[in-house]
């Protein structure tokens, strides 16, 4: 029998052992509760570290870094040596790309565009993640709904997009700059991923009962976003505007329905099509 070293336990806890050594560790853990406790403690520490460090991932990205990623701002060293120049360059760049003007305009119209941009970046971040795109997988949907409801202090509803060919992958909590944001992800047979994100907001939807869909293209990711019932929603994905809008309408319809009294004539079994709530106007 192979002797189990501390390195074996650590590598096992990190999911880095395979084959014979992995089996040897598993057998040792089954025999020795103290070893099992050490593996559990390493895994708890890993989870705590991820919980502590993941919120940084959801922060808004400064325009100068987006420019650098696009190969536009080559002179990193020059900018670092001249903070004033860097500030000026960022400002000029910002105006050139229209960030500031657009932000101000959209914020005046009641919706901080930063939510759409953050939603798009969060979408790209997690949709591209093969290993852990979500924290809670679809097979624990009921638990996911309870968890998101508790963390947002807002009743979570996970729309069913199966009729559109998008199956639920799962969900996660994204700690935004201001308020926690819930994220649920869907995937179709072509491995295209959609994310729906929502968070409680103080913004009002405009006139009572009047919601509008807004569209924004953020670095190649389309986002439809809207405000309804104290919540801001953003649907992001690699679809074109018309397709994404179609999905947004379905999502909106399903989210709006549960909060309204069920139609009186609804027979048991629910085979009658749901009453479609009045759909928002489209802007942007």
């Amino acid at each position: 029998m192979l002797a189990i070293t501390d390195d074996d336990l650590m590598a096992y806890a990190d999911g880095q052992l395979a084959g014979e050594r992995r089996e040897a560790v598993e057998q040792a853990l089954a025999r020795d509760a103290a070893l099992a406790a050490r593996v559990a403690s390493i895994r708890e520490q890993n989870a705590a570290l991820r919980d502590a460090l993941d919120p940084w991932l959801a922060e808004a990205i400064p325009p100068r870094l987006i420019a650098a990623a696009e190969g536009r701002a080559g002179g990193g060293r020059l900018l670092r040596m001249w903070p004033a120049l860097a500030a000026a360059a960022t400002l000029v760049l910002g105006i050139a790309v229209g960030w500031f003007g657009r932000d101000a305009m959209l914020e005046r119209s009641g919706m901080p565009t930063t939510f759409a941009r953050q939603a798009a970046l969060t979408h790209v971040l997690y949709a591209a993640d093969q290993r852990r795109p979500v924290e809670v997988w679809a097979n624990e949907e009921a638990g996911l709904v309870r968890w998101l409801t508790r963390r947002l202090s807002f009743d979570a509803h996970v729309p069913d997009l199966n009729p559109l060919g998008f199956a639920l992958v799962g969900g996660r909590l994204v700690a935004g700059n201001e308020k926690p944001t819930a994220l649920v992800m869907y995937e179709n047979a072509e491995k295209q991923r959609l994310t729906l994100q929502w968070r409680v907001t103080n913004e009002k939807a405009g006139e009572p009962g009047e919601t509008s869909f807004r569209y924004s293209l953020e670095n190649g990711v389309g986002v439809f976003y809207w405000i309804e019932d104290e919540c801001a929603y953003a649907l992001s994905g690699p679809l074109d505007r018309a397709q994404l809008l179609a999905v947004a309408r379905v999502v909106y319809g399903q989210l709006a329905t549960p909060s309204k009294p069920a139609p009186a004539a609804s027979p048991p079994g629910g085979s009658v099509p749901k009453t479609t709530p009045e759909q928002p106007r489209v802007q942007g």
Partner: protein
Amino acid sequence: MADAPLPQPELLAAIPRLRRYARVLARDAARADDLVQETLARGWEKRRLWQAGTDLRAWLFTIMHNVFVNQRAGAAREAANVSLDAESEAGGGAWQVPVPAAQFARVELAEILQQVGRLPVEQRETLLLAAVEEMRYEEIAVMMSVPVGTVMSRLSRAREKLRRMTDERPAALKRVK
């Protein structure tokens, strides 16, 4: 620039992880973003060396590690008498990074962050890459140009220190009571 463009969506998607890695290295939000910017600029300069289909994040992480190590070596040469090794690294421990309290539903998460900040740079770097980014030890060893055994011993020491820091706190509270 048109000859070998780096893939835009992946590059943009890598930014949050690059920023996090940079913060763990620099412990200062502004310096961290300078490091990310420098890394992205180097990435563009060296884009012909990136092989399409390979892990872009790991490639950028390697560039960032090297940029950081070279900057530190340069700083150490400039201030020949000032030691930049374990002593001063382990001393301060304060993150010059905004941590909005509202982000943390659990108080202990903010504490964990503080504790990570008190680890020597090689240890907190290894801990991030292995425990949070879930990179393979071998991958980390190649990135940092050290043997796999060194990666594992740094990791094990980092974990032990964190564990002790966590254990010490409740003991101190008990004494007060």
